[in-house]
């Protein structure tokens, strides 16, 4: 069998990229049609999905990628972790300085500042009173009023596709925070601090919810991942599946020894799956221990 057409021409027919005249000529030739069918069959075979990854391996790959996203970015490089931190910061700021809170703070400050004037001047010097009110209005406006804060936040939200945009938005927020520092002396400070504590608590819970196992192909691979910032202390210890595999006594002993903390991971140690405790020590070194018997690994 010899087709009068080249395989490149026939391959174009397979991909639907040949002109109709060529297609007709190919169809009119038994040899060309036979070869075309072979190429089409090859294309379909290659297009058949190969055997998928095991569910366990699939989950560990995704978990490893998520762990990398949590990593602190190298200097000057944006990362999802940085972006996420900014998002939390933004939420904290907007929650803390919501229009309602700002309005209440402004009203209280206004009363606190105007009252002495009214008492000392007994209402006789209207010019002084008017001037004072004007200064307060300006002060509130400069202090990053609710509208200004929202603008900064909206600007950040609008720049979703660019971390550079986020950076500038974050700068705006920081500026807003500094400007709003003038409000710290207001009587609502305590309430605001309580709000901030609540927000911090929410952020911590959120981080715990995202805790997951990190999988590496070897002890060395795991240490390399730590080196790259892919694993951070205390990031994975709340995963119940991992906790169930850990010897509590081992964890207590290592907790006493490790500062700033521990992390847990699963590794493939010469073909054997092993849950390990990673210690993070003050001098920046890391050591791996078997989570069951506390023996050093690697």
């Amino acid at each position: 069998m010899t087709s009068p057409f080249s395989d490149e021409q026939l391959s174009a027919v397979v991909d639907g990229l040949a002109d109709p005249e060529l297609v007709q000529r190919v169809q009119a030739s038994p040899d060309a049609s036979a070869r075309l069918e072979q190429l089409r069959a090859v294309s379909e075979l290659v297009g058949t999905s190969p055997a998928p990854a095991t569910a366990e391996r699939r989950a560990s790959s995704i978990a490893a990628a998520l762990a990398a996203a949590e990593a602190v970015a190298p200097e000057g490089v944006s990362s999802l972790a940085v972006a996420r931190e900014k998002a939390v910061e933004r939420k904290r700021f907007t929650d803390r300085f919501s229009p309602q809170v700002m309005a209440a703070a402004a009203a209280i400050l206004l009363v606190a500042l105007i009252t002495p004037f009214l008492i000392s001047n007994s209402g006789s010097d209207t010019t002084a009173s008017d001037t004072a009110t004007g200064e307060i209005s300006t002060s509130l406006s400069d202090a990053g009023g609710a509208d200004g804060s929202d603008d900064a936040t909206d600007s950040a939200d609008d720049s979703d596709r660019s971390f550079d945009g986020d950076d500038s938005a974050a700068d705006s927020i920081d500026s807003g925070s500094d400007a709003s520092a003038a409000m710290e002396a207001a009587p609502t400070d305590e309430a605001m601090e309580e709000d901030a504590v609540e927000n911090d608590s929410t952020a911590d819970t959120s981080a715990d919810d995202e805790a997951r196992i990190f999988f590496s192909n070897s002890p060395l691979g795991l240490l390399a991942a730590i080196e790259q910032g892919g694993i951070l202390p205390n990031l994975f210890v709340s995963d119940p599946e991992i906790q169930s595999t850990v010897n509590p006594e081992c964890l207590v002993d290592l907790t006493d020894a490790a500062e700033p903390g521990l992390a847990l991971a699963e590794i493939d140690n010469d073909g054997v799956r092993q849950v390990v405790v990673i210690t993070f020590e003050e001098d920046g070194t890391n050591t791996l221990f078997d989570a069951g018997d506390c023996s050093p690994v690697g």
Partner: protein
Amino acid sequence: MQTLAEDDDLIRAAQDGDMASLEILLDRHHDRLRAVCARVVGRGADADDACQQALISIVKNLDKFDGRARFTTWSYRIATNAAIDELRRRGRRMADSIDDEDNYTQLASIGNFDDAVSAQIDVQAALEQLPEEFRVPVVLRDLGGLDYDEIAETLNIPPGTVRSRIARGRSKLADLIGSLSGDGNQRDSGFVQGTDHD
């Protein structure tokens, strides 16, 4: 009825630090990326490693994704590079020349070409006979469904070269399968005259 979030929405949310959206995005695209890695790399464990590296590269570079290319195309490019890196790292490079017949090995013995196809002959074994410069475009076209321009962008080669390499890759695969069937259907399928059309 709840509708699935679009990729664009998930990407934007993930870029803003939403880990849940990132996880959905990775979960949604894992299988197709892993399939490409498997076709390019071969062995399952290597494909898993390549896929994991691809996912990590995706999250580390997601801030640079600007939406000008489709996420599918962009992520295939990353997966392809991860797969090629894996091949090189493992020192399992394929034959340097597609014309080196010594590199083609016996795969199996099946009655005829049609039987080979219907029996789902191990196309992976045949693919591994192809140098990666031919294998990757064929995989991106036939498995990934990318058009020639997208493959050209992914591999940073001209579209004419893509067309040529796909044709030659399929041609050699057909011959390999044909040789297994012993039906005498193989032909000089353009490799002799074949040159990249840049």
